[in-house]
């Protein structure tokens, strides 16, 4: 499978974790970004994610390649959801296996931070009260 993917269906976390298996991997670090029930003081009851899929896949693959070059890792997998998500659903999943935990933590953190900052994906928050809004945070 591709190291970075976009999924319109619920992320199959167990299957992704198996992708990280490697005889040389003494450490596996996984991060799950989940839909939370509040943001900026407002009660949230769901999210919609939209992606520019072609460019998102290219930029995501670029980020994974950067992480491979920076850190001593075995495998890296990252998948981001699109579509309508309910509270508690996994919006993004990133997993890294490596010989040692330091590189696994560092690479996992690098991938999720860069994905959030650079990959063309947008979230629309649906609120308990009021009209939904697209989020366009100021660049870092």
């Amino acid at each position, binding site marked *: 499978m591709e190291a970075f993917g976009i999924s319109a269906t619920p992320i199959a976390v167990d299957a992704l974790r198996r992708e990280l298996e490697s005889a040389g991997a003494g450490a596996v670090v996984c991060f799950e970004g989940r839909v939370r029930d509040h943001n900026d003081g407002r009660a949230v009851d769901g999210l919609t994610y939209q992606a520019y899929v072609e460019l998102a896949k290219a930029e995501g693959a670029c980020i994974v390649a950067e992480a491979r070059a920076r850190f001593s890792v075995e495998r890296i997998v990252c998948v981001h959801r699109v579509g309508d998500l309910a509270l508690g659903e996994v919006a993004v999943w990133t997993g890294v296996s490596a010989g040692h935990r330091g590189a696994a933590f560092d690479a996992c953190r690098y991938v999720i931070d860069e994905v959030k900052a650079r*990959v*063309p*994906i*947008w979230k629309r928050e649906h609120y308990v009260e009021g009209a939904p809004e697209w989020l366009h945070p100021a660049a870092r």
Partner: protein
Amino acid sequence: MNYKLLYFASLCDAAGCSEEAVSSAACDVRSLYAEIAARHGFSFTPEHLRVAVNGAFTDWEQRLANNDEVVFLPPVSGG
């Protein structure tokens, strides 16, 4: 020249469509955005956006060719 524009997130809402075919005299990205932003009432200035042509990030001075696919990308919010 003829261009295909794709719109995402709030720009999609403001344009009222996710894509459109545009015939324009603009021949670079910056002037095409000025024309499109005025027509659709986009509030973002180029400083707040990134731009992609034919599926790759590029800069605002990029010259355009007939039938290019152009996307103006508002600040992202994945994760």
